[in-house]
C-alpha cells in the first residue's frame, strides 16, 4: 500500500446546534479558520456562518430545464411537422397547444436529473466511495463535528484547543486526514 501524505486537523465535538453556531461566530472573531463542519442534519444557514459560497445549483437546474424544453419542442416539431406531416383531428401539422404537456414533462425531467447528477458529481458522491473519511462517525448520529486545518491557522494547537473548549466543545482531538482521499 502506498504511503499517503496526511494533514493534521483539530477536531472539536459539539452537542448542540445553537452552541455550535455561537462557537463558529466566536472562532471567526478570533480569526480561526474553520475548514468544515459535519452535522447529522441540515442546520439552516450554517454554510453562511462558515463563509461558504452560495451554490449555483439552481442556475444549473434552470439551464437543464431549458435544454429539456428545447429538446421537446424540437422532437415534436420535427416528427409532427417535418418528418411525417399528418392532419389529426383537424389540427395543424404543428399544433402548439398539443405540445405543451410533453414540453413540460421533459423540462421537469431534464432539470431534475441534470441537477441531481450535478449535485452528486460536485460533492463527489459516488457509489464506489463506500468508506469515506470521517473525522468522527458520530456526526451522522448526534454530534456536530468541527474540523480545523492546522496548516491554515497561525495560532498554536493549544490556543485553538483552548478556544474550542471555551466555546462549549464537549471534547477536542487531533486527527490525521489522508491528503489524497478518494475512498
Amino acid at each position, binding site marked *: 500500500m502506498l504511503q499517503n501524505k496526511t494533514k493534521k486537523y483539530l477536531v472539536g465535538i459539539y452537542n448542540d446546534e445553537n452552541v455550535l453556531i455561537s462557537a463558529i461566530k466566536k472562532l471567526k472573531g478570533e480569526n480561526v479558520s474553520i475548514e468544515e463542519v459535519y452535522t447529522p442534519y441540515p442546520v439552516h444557514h450554517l454554510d453562511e456562518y462558515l463563509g461558504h459560497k452560495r451554490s449555483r445549483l439552481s442556475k444549473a437546474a434552470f439551464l437543464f430545464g431549458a435544454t429539456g424544453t428545447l429538446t421537446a419542442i424540437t422532437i415534436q416539431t420535427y416528427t409532427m411537422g417535418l418528418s411525417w406531416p399528418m392532419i389529426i383531428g383537424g389540427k395543424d401539422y404543428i399544433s402548439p397547444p398539443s405540445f405543451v404537456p410533453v414540453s413540460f*414533462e421533459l423540462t421537469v425531467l431534464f*432539470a431534475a436529473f441534470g441537477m441531481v447528477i450535478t449535485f452528486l458529481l460536485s460533492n463527489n458522491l459516488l457509489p464506489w466511495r463506500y468508506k*469515506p473519511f470521517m473525522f468522527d462517525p458520530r456526526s451522522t448520529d448526534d454530534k456536530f463535528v468541527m474540523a480545523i486545518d492546522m496548516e491554515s491557522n497561525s495560532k498554536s494547537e493549544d490556543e485553538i484547543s483552548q478556544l474550542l473548549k471555551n466555546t462549549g466543545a464537549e471534547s477536542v482531538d487531533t486527527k490525521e486526514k489522508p491528503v489524497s482521499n478518494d475512498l
Partner: protein
Amino acid sequence: MQVTSPVREPLVLRKPDENNPGKLRTTTLADVTNDICRQVEAAPNMRWLLAMLISLVAFAWGSYTLYRTWWFGIGEWGLNKTIGWAWDITNFVWWVGIGHAGTLISAILLLFRQKWRTSINRAAEAMTIFAVICAGSFILMHMGRPWLAHWALPLPNTYGSLWVNFNSPLVWDVFAISTYLSVSVVFWYIGLIPDLATIRERAIRDGRAIPAFIYGCLSFGWDGSAKTWARYEMVALVLAGLSTPLVLSVHTIVSFDFATSVIPGWHTTIFPPYFVAGAIFSGFAMVLTLMLITRHVFKLQHYITLAHIESMNKVILLTGSIVGIAYLTEFFIAWYSGVEYESYAFLNRMFGPYWWAYWSMMTCNVISPQFFWFRAMRRNIYVTFALSIVVNIGMWFERFVIIVTSLHRDFLPSSWSMFWPTYVDVGDYIFSFGLFFTAFFLFAKFLPVVNMAEVKAVLASSNEEIQEAGLVEAEKEAATAAH
C-alpha cells in the same frame, strides 16, 4: 421571505425515562437514530416474514393470471368491443392516484414548510414509487403485447419514420408517468442518502462488514459536511418546486385520456382538478392505511403521532369534499347543458344496471370523509384505519363508474353491453397488490422508514413545544399503544 408554520403540537413525543420509572424524558438525537435503525439492523421477525409470505402468495397467483393475459391475450378479460377500457384502466387510474399523496407530502408540504411531513415523507414517497410501478404494470397488461411497449416512444423505426402522435393524450401519458416515476425515485433516493450514511457508520462501528459495504455503496460516500448539506437543501427545494407542478400535471394528463374524447360522461372540463383532488384523497387514505400498520409494527408511536394522523385526516376531509362537489357539479351540468346524451349518461350511472357501483362510490367518497369534521374522529386510530380503507374502495368504484358506465351504453343501442370481470381480471388486480406490498415490506425492512435527518432537524422545536404544553393527549395514546 421565509415563513415557517408554527408547530402547534409536539411532533416527536417524550419517551419513558429509563432512570426514573413512571416519568417521561425528552427524545434525543441519538434516540431518533436508535429507534429508526433498530428495524433495519434486527433480524426479520415472524410478523414481517408472515406479511411477506402473504404478499408473495398474492404475487405468485397474480403472476399466473398475468401469464394467461400475456400468453393468451386480453380475450382472457371480461371486456368487449363496446367496453374496451374496463378493469385494467380502472386499476391504472386508481394506482396512479394513490401515488399522488407521496409527492404531495414530500414536495408541496415542503414548499409550504409544514414540519409534520418529516416523519411520514419517506414512507409516503416509497408508496408513491410502488404505486406508480403498479399503475405502469396495468398499462403494460393493457397493451396486450408488452414486448412492443417501446412503440409508445418517438423512436426512429424501420416502417418508414412513422412517429407517435403528439396530439394524443395517451402519448402525453407516456411522458407524464415515466417522468413522474423517475423524478420521484430520484427525489426519494436523494433524501435517503444521509440516512444510509448513518446506517453505514453504525455498521462499521459494530464491525458488520457486509452491511457496511452495501449501505456504504448506497450512501455514495456521504459525510454530512456543511457544504454538502447546503447543496442538498437546495436540491431538495428545487426538486420540490419541480415535483409540485409535475404531480398536478400527471393526474391532469390522466384525466385528459377521458376528457379529450367525445364520450358522454368523459367529455367535461372539470376533469383535471376533480381527478387531482380525488388522487390526493385516495393517496392520503393509502398513506394512513400503511402508516397505521407501520407505526404499530415498528413501534413508531413517538414519531408518527396523533398530530400527524389528524393532519392527514384534515387533508382527506378537504379533498373528499372537493370530490363530492365535483360529483354534484357534473350532475348539474349534465342537466343544465341540455345535452340528452350527457343527461342520460348520468341518470344511467345512478339508476342503470351499475347503480350499485355508483352508490358505493357516493357512500364511500362523499359521506364517509364527513366524519372527519369531528376532532374525536380525526384522532381515533380505529375510525381512521377503517375509513382509510373505505375511501380507497370508494375511489376504485369512482374510476369504475367513470370508465365502465360511460362506455357500456354506446351511441348505437344494438352495441349496448355489460362488463363483468373474469378471474384473470381479478388475478391481475391481485398481482398489483402482491407487487405493491412485497416492495413496501422490503422497503420497510431494509431502509429507514422515517427520515431520520429531517426528524432530527425538527426535534429541537418539538422539544421546546413539549416544555410549554406538558403531557399531551398524543403521549397518552402512544403510551397505551406501546403496551
